[in-house]
């Protein structure tokens, strides 16, 4: 069968099981969009900015576990994907980004809309390809999906020159992927499992610290089973939330650790004598001052990426492999972990230092909004966040009960991620209530995607926690820069002596054809949220909150985990 490169590419995507592409057209990729025009099996979601395409593909992948696909033209189309690709790379999200490129004969000539996108994305992709010959195209697409989705997942970029899209050749589907230099499957080492069990049996104060690897590895159930079988307390990174169900009354549940973690999670880590790290990478936001991280603890580390092991902290028992396999092995053995006294201690810490905030009847507290949202949705909605204070309040006050329900840019911290990612998630899981929690700063970074949600009737809900500030930077300036609020004020609340909002998110949303409303009185929050959630189409709620609320507790950068400010009894 002789087909054009564009047809071969689309045929390959179908065979890889791709159902949705988030894309934006442009000169050199018209041949590809021309094929997609009549393609029934792949839904093309045309976004309003390429960055939105990358984040939407990322959100699609996080919510579904499948590979997300985004598509852009050469030059500026490709560079607009870069932030989205870097975001996916830092959080190990399986994604394939396809970019158009100028014709092979023009490459290197500074042609119109030419950019060396494989060069630009080399440090932020798991791998990338420039397709120089249409005969390599099918094999490359196959390899790209294989690389993106196996081992430690990550984004892969395929750069396709225009003439490769238009040249015809015999289509041959490679049945198998054979890469002699890429072997992502590791068999869990039994000797290491036994060593881990020896340490667990000896431990007095063990803690499980897990991260996004548990979500990526679909190992939430096994983790929960293992922790409950041996009564080991569990703390999570931001990206792990939902892996172990949130329930404050569960004596094993510690919530999130780190810079804005709970007091008891940070105390537990600091005082533990054994940390079982699962699919987590000891990021600086988690460890605080690295030399004083868990000073008395031995560390067992389960991770699929050998380079994660002993990168930031010295690991005593590394277990390289899929977290699911490792937990399955650990669950085969009967052994006893002594945690009764330890759990009693943790219970005291929990009682003395719960997550807390000052409620107000005058002004809406953001924590209250998230608590109410958590209660109304029973912790079962998909919550996509932007980056900043609201993101931390979601992590602290939303009780995630299922994996793949928190979507957040943890590693790169990308403002502008949450809204398009929420759109992608809603497309991936149409039956799930999908809610974007945004700050007034972040939402404005990709607000154009409101048109996408309206056009395709994607019923995503947006809650803006509007404090008229870049709240997290303002908080740092308040605490560490003498309240010198440089470049953080986003809106003055009065115009010509009258109260006003700008942008007026309600008017903006309405201009895009959305349902929108605003709430300013704490007494109205619950009803306003219910109204929002009952809307059939895309809908936005602008929540005017306390302007200078802080996220506490907080471990200042460079301090150890016990040196928290705020939230202490």
């Amino acid at each position, binding site marked *: 069968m002789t087909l054009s490169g564009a047809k071969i590419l689309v045929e390959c995507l179908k065979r890889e099981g791709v159902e949705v592409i988030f894309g934006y057209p442009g000169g050199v990729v018209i041949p590809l969009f021309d094929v997609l025009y009549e393609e029934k099996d792949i839904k093309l979601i045309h976004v309003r900015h390429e960055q939105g395409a990358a984040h939407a593909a990322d959100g699609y992948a996080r919510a579904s576990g499948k590979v997300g696909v985004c598509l852009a033209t050469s030059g500026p189309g490709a560079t607009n994907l870069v932030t989205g690709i870097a975001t996916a790379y830092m959080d190990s999200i399986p994604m394939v980004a396809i970019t158009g490129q100028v014709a092979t004969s023009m490459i290197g000539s500074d042609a119109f809309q030419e950019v060396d996108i*494989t060069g630009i994305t*080399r*440090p932020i992709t798991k*791998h990338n390809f420039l397709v120089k010959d249409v005969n390599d195209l099918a094999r490359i697409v196959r390899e790209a999906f294989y*690389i993106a989705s196996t081992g430690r997942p990550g984004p892969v970029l395929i750069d396709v020159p225009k003439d490769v899209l238009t040249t015809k050749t015999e289509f041959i589907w490679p049945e198998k992927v054979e890469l*002699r*230099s890429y072997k992502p499957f590791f068999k869990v080492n039994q000797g290491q499992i036994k060593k881990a069990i020896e340490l667990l049996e000896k431990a007095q104060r063990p803690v499980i610290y897990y991260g996004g690897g548990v979500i990526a590895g679909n190992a939430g159930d096994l983790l929960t089973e293992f922790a409950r079988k041996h009564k080991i307390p569990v703390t999570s990174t931001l990206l792990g939330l939902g892996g172990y169900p949130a329930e404050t009354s569960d004596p094993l549940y510690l919530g999130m650790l780190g810079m804005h973690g709970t007091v008891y999670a940070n105390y537990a880590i600091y005082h533990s004598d054994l940390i079982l790290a699962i699919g987590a990478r000891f990021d600086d936001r988690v460890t605080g001052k690295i030399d004083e991280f868990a000073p008395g603890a031995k560390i067992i580390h389960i991770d699929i*990426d*050998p380079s994660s092991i*002993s990168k930031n902290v010295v690991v005593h028992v590394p277990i390289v492999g899929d977290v699911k396999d490792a937990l399955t092995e650990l669950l085969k053995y009967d052994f006893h972990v002594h945690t009764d006294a330890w759990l009693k201690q943790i219970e005291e810490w929990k009682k003395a230092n719960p997550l807390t905030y000052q409620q107000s009847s005058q002004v809406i507290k953001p924590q209250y909004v998230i608590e109410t949202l958590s209660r109304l949705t029973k912790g079962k909605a998909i919550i996509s966040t932007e980056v900043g204070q609201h993101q931390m309040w979601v992590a602290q006050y939303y009780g995630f009960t299922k994996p793949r329900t928190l979507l957040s840019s943890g590693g790169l911290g990308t403002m502008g991620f949450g809204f398009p990612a929420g759109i992608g998630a809603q497309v991936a899981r149409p039956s799930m209530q999908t809610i974007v929690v945004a700050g007034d700063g972040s939402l404005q970074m990709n607000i154009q995607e409101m048109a996408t949600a309206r056009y395709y009737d994607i019923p995503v809900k947006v809650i803006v926690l509007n404090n008229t500030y870049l709240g997290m930077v303002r908080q740092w300036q308040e605490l560490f820069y003498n309240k010198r609020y440089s470049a953080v004020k986003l809106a003055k609340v009065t115009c010509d002596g009258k109260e006003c909002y700008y942008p007026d998110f309600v008017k903006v949303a309405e201009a895009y054809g959305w349902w929108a409303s605003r709430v300013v009185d704490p007494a109205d929050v619950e009803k306003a949220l219910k109204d929002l959630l009952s809307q059939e189409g895309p809908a936005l709620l602008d929540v005017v909150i306390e302007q200078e609320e802080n996220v506490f507790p907080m471990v200042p950068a460079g301090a150890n985990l016990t040196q928290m400010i705020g939230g202490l009894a």
Partner: protein
Amino acid sequence: MQYTLSVLVENHFGVLARIAGLFSARGFNIVSLSVAETEDPTVSVMTIVVDGDNRVVDQVKKQLNKLIEVIKVRDLTEEEYVERELALIKVGVNATKRREIIEIADVFKGKVVDISHTTITIEVTGSEEKVDAIIELLKSYGIIEMARTGKIALLRG
């Protein structure tokens, strides 16, 4: 401490850029790097000399292994291996001192590869230390210019 790594990679365009990029992005220090095809034209070998402590080099090895196009990373440092460097050294010299320089080259089993009224160019191969030693000796005569390869290495046996 210096570590010598022998890295087998796919002979694709862009592989060198990936490896160089990895070193610069993670702040690893390359002392020297040499690349060439192996007996299998689809495979290249890179000999990389890295400076750093044990932990840094451990990360370097893991990060290299993580690159999709890296087939194998071998740390030769702890093993028995042979290594060679090649240097071309041009020394400014007149007829009176020429004899002395040729004698020095002989001691190091070097070769005279070019000669003019005012210069003489020596080729020398050997371990890094040997090449360093002859350079040190020739300095006093005035080295005009010099080119030196990175180290290449193979395991013994």
